[in-house]
């Protein structure tokens, strides 16, 4: 990175160091690093820097041109202001997340190719989610993150398809619109909170920490505006889409009772002006979109800081529970009103010089519908942000009698479940502990307010950094009359219809209903049929393998018992029977024969015993008879043979 230092590095290094620093040393880094980043942007000239190669692709981390510089200026500037506002925060996680978030947003702005953009895009989603998680309502944070991952996935799919078409990864205006470009556009539009994929913003931002919302309202949507300008300038459907956004946001803001959610809806509305500007696509419109993004970041941060301060001090977030705070928080009230007049486009305030550019561009491009819708939205913005909300919160209305500063006497039951939960956690300091705003908060609001005024009075400061040369003069009689007329009429309507416009304690259904219910339905599906299926598969080895095996074994046993054992028994039986016969044969035949021989022997012996007379004569007699017999035998045998 010769000759250039990536501004994100300031943020990331600060984020890495903060946890290891002493409490008192942290502000130096928290403020110093963003300020240094701001200065570095002023110093380094335009050009292409920071080229790296990853996975066979060359990445460009620093494309510095007029467009990216404007966003770089305002992003670094707002980080400084936001950090001043959150100096009192003790939790380092919050600081680290905010720094990473800001750093990734700036990284996305300076990304010269789609892959680098995607890297920072994802980092932005995760780091910003932390700011919402820390607010205590983790479910909202989870929804926020999933929606952004969906957007990221669409973006990734688009990028992969885009590259597969043989395009270079360089991020520049898309010439033709195909599937890949549409997917990329969807990814961008999710972050730009374009209806109907906008609900994450109003759902999650109000749940962020007191200070986190200041960062949130600055980066995500404005990065989206930047990439839309870069890639889709002049893509006409965006003009109508933006105009619808402006009205949609205002409409929901009108109905909203949660003070920060009301402002969140106004982000949608204001981003609508920018998206419409991108869609119109003329140099004036693009200038208008950029200028409006610049101005909007400042005054929206100011407004958010104002309402966050109210939440910080009172612990309450519903307009119907608040009131009369002008007495106790006069400075916050005044500064908030500067923001309010800015967002309404009051002459000499910053909104005037930027918003009128977009509206003029619509008129010049003969987009009558867009022009009208934006004008109506401006009136609505004036009513709800600048008149209604401060009237309800700071004004002394009858509905707010029981609301008291400090909130210590407020019944705990009055807290919404979410705030109650946060209270238990101690993340948002609730009434009773905070009696006034920390000095840093007021200072930050003061800086933002003075910047709003500065830009409103000296629009040239902003105009000279816009991407296209500006020949636009906001302070013509026509513009002034138009603005004052419109605001005056709106104010009149407001004062007449005051009692109908007062906030009501209701919760409005928005498109997040679909993914909330859809998510619940999906989980029911997963833990119902899918789980049953899985249990079936998981145990099917018993039915398929074990049970047949057992049956087989049982059959084998039967075969064994009845056939083989039977045969063996048969043989045994036969053998046994046979042996009985043998026994008898032995007993009667063999033994009988032996006995008989013995008996005969006995008889013979007794006969011979008688023959032994002891007389020589007898012996000689027998001898002679014997010889005689032998001779006869001999003679007979000789004759025969």
């Amino acid at each position, binding site marked *: 990175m010769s000759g250039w230092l990536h501004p994100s590095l300031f943020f990331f290094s600060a984020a890495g160091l903060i946890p290891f620093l002493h409490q008192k040393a942290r502000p130096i880094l928290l403020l110093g690093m963003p300020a240094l980043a701001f200065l570095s942007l002023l110093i380094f000239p335009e050009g292409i820097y920071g080229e790296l190669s990853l996975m066979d692709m060359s990445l460009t981390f620093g494309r510095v041109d007029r467009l990216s510089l404007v966003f770089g200026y305002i992003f670094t500037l707002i980080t400084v202001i936001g950090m001043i506002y959150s100096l009192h925060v003790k939790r380092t996680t919050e600081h680290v997340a905010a720094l990473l978030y800001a750093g990734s947003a700036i990284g996305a702005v300076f990304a010269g190719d789609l892959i680098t953009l995607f*890297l920072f895009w*994802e980092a932005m989603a995760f780091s910003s989610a932390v700011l919402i998680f*820390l607010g205590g309502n*983790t479910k909202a944070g989870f929804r926020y993150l*999933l929606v952004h991952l969906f957007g990221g996935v669409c973006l*990734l799919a688009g990028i992969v398809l885009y590259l597969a078409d043989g395009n270079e990864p360089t991020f520049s205006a898309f010439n033709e619109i195909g599937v890949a470009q549409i997917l990329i556009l969807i990814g961008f539009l999710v972050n730009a909170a374009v209806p109907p994929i906008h609900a994450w913003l109003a759902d999650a931002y109000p749940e962020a920490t007191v200070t986190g919302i200041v960062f949130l309202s600055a980066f995500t949507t404005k990065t989206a505006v930047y990439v839309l300008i870069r890639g889709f300038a002049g893509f006409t459907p965006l003009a109508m889409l933006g105009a619808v956004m402006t009205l949609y946001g205002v409409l929901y803001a009108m109905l909203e009772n949660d003070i920060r959610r009301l402002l969140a809806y106004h982000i949608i509305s204001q981003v609508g002006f920018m998206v419409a500007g991108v869609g119109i696509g003329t140099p004036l419109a693009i200038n208008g979109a950029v200028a409006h993004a610049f101005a909007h970041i400042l005054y929206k941060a100011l407004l958010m800081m104002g309402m966050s301060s109210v939440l910080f001090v009172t612990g309450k977030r519903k307009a119907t529970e608040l009131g009369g705070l002008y007495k106790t928080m006069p400075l916050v009230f005044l500064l908030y009103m500067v923001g309010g007049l800015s967002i309404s486009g009051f002459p000499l305030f910053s909104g005037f010089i930027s918003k009128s550019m977009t509206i003029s561009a619509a008129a010049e491009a003969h987009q009558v519908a867009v022009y009208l819708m934006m004008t109506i939205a401006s009136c609505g913005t004036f009513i709800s942000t600048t008149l209604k909300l401060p009237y309800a919160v700071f004004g002394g209305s009858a509905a707010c009698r029981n609301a008291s500063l400090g909130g210590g006497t407020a019944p705990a039951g009055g807290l919404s479940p979410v705030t109650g939960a946060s209270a238990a956690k101690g993340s948002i300091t609730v009434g009773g502990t905070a009696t006034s705003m920390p000095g840093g908060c007021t200072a930050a609001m003061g800086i933002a307010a003075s910047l709003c005024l500065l830009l409103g009075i000296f629009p040239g400061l902003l105009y000279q950094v816009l991407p296209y040369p500006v020949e636009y003069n906001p302070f013509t009689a026509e513009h002034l009359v138009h603005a004052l007329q419109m605001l005056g009429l709106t104010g009149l309507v407001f004062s007449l219809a005051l009692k109908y416009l007062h906030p009501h304690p209701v919760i409005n259904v928005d498109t997040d209903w679909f993914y909330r219910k859809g998510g619940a339905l999906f989980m029911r599906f*997963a833990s119902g049929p899918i*789980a049953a299926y899985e249990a079936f598969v*998981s145990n099917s080895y018993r039915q398929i393998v074990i049970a047949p095996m057992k049956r087989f074994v049982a059959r084998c046993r039967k075969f064994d018992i009845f056939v083989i054992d039977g045969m063996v028994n048969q043989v045994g039986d036969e053998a046994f029977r046979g042996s009985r016969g043998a026994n008898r044969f032995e007993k009667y035949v063999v033994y009988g024969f032996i006995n008989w021989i013995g008996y005969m022997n006995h008889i013979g012996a007794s006969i011979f015993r008688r023959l032994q007379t002891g007389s020589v004569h007898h012996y000689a007699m027998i001898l002679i008879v014997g010889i005689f017999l032998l001779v006869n035998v001999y003679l007979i045998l000789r004759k025969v043979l």
Partner: protein
Amino acid sequence: MVEVVSIKPLLIIFISLSAILPIILFDKHPNYRETASVIAGILKFLVVISMAPIIFAGQVIVFPLYTFIPGLQFSLRVDALGFLFASVASLLWIVTSFYSIGYMRGAHEKNQTRFFSCFALAISATMGVAFSANLLTLYVFYEMLSLVTVPLVGHKETAEASFGTKKYLIYLAGASKSALLAAIVLTYSIAGTLDFIPGGIFAPAFEGEEVESGLLTVIYVLFLIGFAKAAIMPLHSWLPAAMVAPTPVSALLHAVAVVKVGVFSVLRIIFHIFGVDMMETLGLGVMTLYLTSFTIIMASVYALTQDNLKARLAYSTVSQLSYIVLGAVLLSPSGMMGGIVHIAAHAFSKITLFMCAGSLYVTAHKTKISELSGIGRKMPWTMTAFAIGAFGMIGVPPLAGFVSKWYLAVGAIEANQYPVLIVLLSSTILNAAYFLPIIQKAFFNNEAEDKFKEAAQAAFLPQALGADAAHTDALHPEKEIAESSPFIVVPLMVTAIGSVLVGLFPQYFLELAKQVIQ
């Protein structure tokens, strides 16, 4: 391809095999016994890595052992694919050896000598599979691995453990004995050889003749069934059942060694038995694509419903393993690269996650996700590593999972398989949906809040009153949970950092993957 004859592959198998002797001899001296494990692990890794120059030069190492009958040899061969697998597994064995010490002592497990010796045996078998030169050798080591891991899975000797072990053995041994053996015999009868040859052995066998596609498809399916260790649905349920094992086993074997052996074997079949061309001719790639896509989505959806941390991780593993096979069967260069690189990417991330689950079990005695509220503040290192591992699995850039996801996505487009792209990306969201709540609970929910909700629900009290209950509970916390011992924390941090490094510097694995698909 130049072949270098070297005894190193045999040596690698023998190092851990011979470590068993000192392990058993030092039964009564645990410190010496574990030292033997660690030394063997380091030695083994060094020998593996010493082969790197030869492999990266595009050469292979062979070491023939002996011939059964002519044509059937028992021999070892190291190529890029085997080397990649072996280097990952042997590196992670060192880490797991340290981790096992912390875990087994921390959890007061019995029969540690049996555990450590079986572990060494299992690693030997894994290396054997990685270095097999042919199907026969692979089969022998594959079966050996199934058998020596049985005592590890059933280590606790409880009824549950024995049930899990039974299922494990029935699935793995049953599949390999029935389908795999049949497939190998059929392969031999057709091709006349079982060697792993780049481009496959079937293509030369049918040179000039018509390919018997029916028979080959049957063989392929038999292989897929036979390698049940790859846990492709519906043959996956042994893996959740095997989670009864002590966590080091789940970490190294059921996230790296055993399951990767299954996947590795399937890759061998695809690349070196059938060959990419033959796969394309037979249309087997597309068939497997649908099977693996189904597995990826189904397992992820089911993981969503699991409250047991290890069960959720197991189903996540089932899903992630199919990424690897899916990449291979895309049959496009980037897809195959993605699949191969995912072997490493998944290994580093998933082993981290399992080690974290073990750390939570040993130190905090928690196994369920619903009990993890606020644990991140008490065990910051464990849960940080867990977050890194989970981000790796989701594929958040610049972690390891992103590299493989990128290549898989590009590969899907190269292969004109757009549905696969949708599967991959919806799986990303599903991964996020089942991993992020854990991180969110651990770091951003707190216990008091959970109790507060429970109390409010249980007593049907208004939440305001429930808050008091929460306060009293918060005032009297249970025994303080602190971070696990360094033996547990250091290894899991090392693998977490490893998964970051694989993501930042994937060149090593990409280079090897390129050689495989050449």
